[in-house]
């Protein structure tokens, strides 16, 4: 049985610029029905048809899970990325028909928590928009600490402050405001769970400090979808299907495999869920691993690759696909 998700036919109902970098997109079902209910922290994979090319990017749902008339996502423009965010910003207009996946949650709240402590950096705020809405409606105990570059790039900072007042703390890089992380982590009541979403550097910093200060790994939750990075083109042989394919500079290995008509399972397309894990039959060259799924040992072994985010440089690569 394939573990892929069911698809939803949607239409773009609104496109709202939020600030210089971020635009919000609203989707409704084409048949006018309600969308499936979801839980705070869930994402959908958005299919982008860009001429010959299909891109599939994951975005966190940021609306309230209590309102499923529409799904909303916020997309930060990445001018040096592979073009998914640029496509969303330039080509997606109200009325456009698109396809998104059913929601999948790889960043779920731990409902046993006595308190939910949330740390967001930049566009990492989006899953917390849904989680705080869900918790607030249930009377849940949460506190959000949100770091952004400047006040004007503090996406939804005003909304969050208005909704939750002192439960939201803002930190602006340009004003040299920093989270006093050690103090924050040392003053939380027993049974608190920590959630962090933001740039890789921030996630690593928070996880590292939390571990040092005695937070068990089970209480520290993080979500970082690695965006597939562009790189040198390379050739791959798919041993099972007997095909040889080329992966372009701007294409991910997974996208190239799909373009050849082979469909590995996937859920996140961001190196997190483990679904598209692929065995390496043989190789001559070096892997550029970008995932958070495989262990360091797996990375060193040269036996496995996550084609959604990782690449290869070298003479030959044969995969069990």
């Amino acid at each position, binding site marked *: *049985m394939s*573990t892929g998700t*069911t698809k939803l036919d949607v239409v773009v109902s609104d496109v709202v610029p939020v600030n210089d970098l971020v635009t919000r997109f609203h989707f409704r079902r084409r048949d006018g029905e309600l969308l*499936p209910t979801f*839980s705070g922290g869930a994402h959908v994979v958005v299919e982008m048809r860009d001429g010959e090319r299909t891109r599939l990017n994951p975005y966190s749902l940021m609306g309230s899970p209590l309102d499923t008339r529409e799904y909303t996502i916020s997309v930060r423009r990445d001018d040096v990325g592979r073009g998914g965010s640029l496509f969303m910003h330039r080509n997606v207009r109200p009325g456009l028909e698109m396809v998104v996946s*059913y929601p*999948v949650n790889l960043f779920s709240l731990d409902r046993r928590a006595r308190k939910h402590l949330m740390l967001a950096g930049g566009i990492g705020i989006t899953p917390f928009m849904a989680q705080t809405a869900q918790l607030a409606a*249930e009377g849940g105990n949460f506190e959000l600490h949100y770091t952004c570059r400047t006040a004007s790039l503090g996406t939804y900072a005003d909304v969050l402050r208005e909704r939750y007042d002192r439960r939201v703390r803002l930190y602006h890089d340009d004003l040299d405001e920093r989270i006093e992380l050690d103090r924050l982590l040392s003053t939380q009541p027993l049974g608190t769970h920590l959630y962090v979403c933001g740039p890789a550097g921030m996630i690593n910093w928070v996880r590292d400090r939390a571990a040092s200060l005695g937070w068990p790994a089970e209480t520290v939750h993080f979500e970082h979808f690695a965006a597939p990075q562009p790189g040198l083109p390379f050739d791959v042989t798919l041993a099972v299907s007997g095909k040889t394919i080329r992966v372009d500079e701007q294409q991910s290995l997974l996208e190239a495999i799909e373009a050849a008509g082979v469909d590995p399972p996937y*859920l996140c397309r961001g190196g997190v*869920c483990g679904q598209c894990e692929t065995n390496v039959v043989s190789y001559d060259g070096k892997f550029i691993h970008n995932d958070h799924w495989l262990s360091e040992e797996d990375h060193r072994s040269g036996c496995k690759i996550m084609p959604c985010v990782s690449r290869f440089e070298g003479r030959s690569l044969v995969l069990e696909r």
Partner: protein
Amino acid sequence: MGITFRKETFRDDFTFKNSPEHIRRFPFPFHEDAYMYAVNIEPHVVGPKGSVLENLIDVDEHYVAEMQDRALVLAEDPLRCQSLPHMTLAGWDLLELLMEQQALGYPEHFTLTRDGDRWRWINRPLGIDDTFTFGDTSTLPYGPMEYITRQSQGDFCILDQRDGNLWMDAGMVTTQADWSLDFDIGMNFFEWHAPVPLAHEKGIFVRALKFLTNIQQGKPARRLNWTMTINPRLDTSPENYHKWGPDRATVTPENVGDKVHLRVELQSFWRLPRSNGIVFPIRCYLIKMDELVTQPKWARRLHRVIRDLPDELANYKGLTRYRPALVEWLSKLDDGSATSPGFGPD
């Protein structure tokens, strides 16, 4: 036209019976003449009309009697229904799922009307007509899980997903095959399956867990499991083992056909949307040997399965004491001819 619900009992005088149509639709669990564990999970999609898979949540002629039996069990032992404090939201998810599915499959018996979070639920077989606020526990006579599972056939386990594992943190379990919710609640997937022999060594649970943690919303899955029960007793709990255990010593060559029942569990697995948990309904179907052997293929096959079952499995399933009498009785119905592939009767 709707279902004609039988008046029958699963205790004391044991008047439970299957109608001829229900014998034909019985989910016979053996697709070949032998049995061993496997990760036999498949998509839970609608099956042929007239089968137990005609609807994803099956309601049958035993519905009313099973719900009455459940009420008796709960009155004796309220610990059969428990929900750890963080599982209330998942209970609402389950309430929505079961109301939607029952109303969809059996509109003549169940009706769900929604106006925002104001819901009206009509259950005609049980004479229930309640209006409540979805999400507000104070508007129901029980917690959401208990409320709806007092009106739904089968046991229900709600699993919380965290740290790459599934945790049995809530359930309604009154028709179980000898395991205790009260003891197992709070355990993870490996722990509550710990007493199952052989399967751990085969890596069954590691693979099954990997599959289950990736179950997606809108894509439920299912598997069949089976055991045997003496007398059509739904409540074969460990709590009451000292009460029903002696039944196993009452099997004689003369009463096998009436006393020995094949007990099949249709287990399904559904992702719950708001809580991100998984619900695991365990729907129990009983059939006595006299009814089962009306299908000659099933008689031949069951004989071969029970005869060749490894001792550890026979022991785990509690068959040891009466297996010789059962095999002897079934052997008379097995002429040695081949059985056709697949589950269904010929």
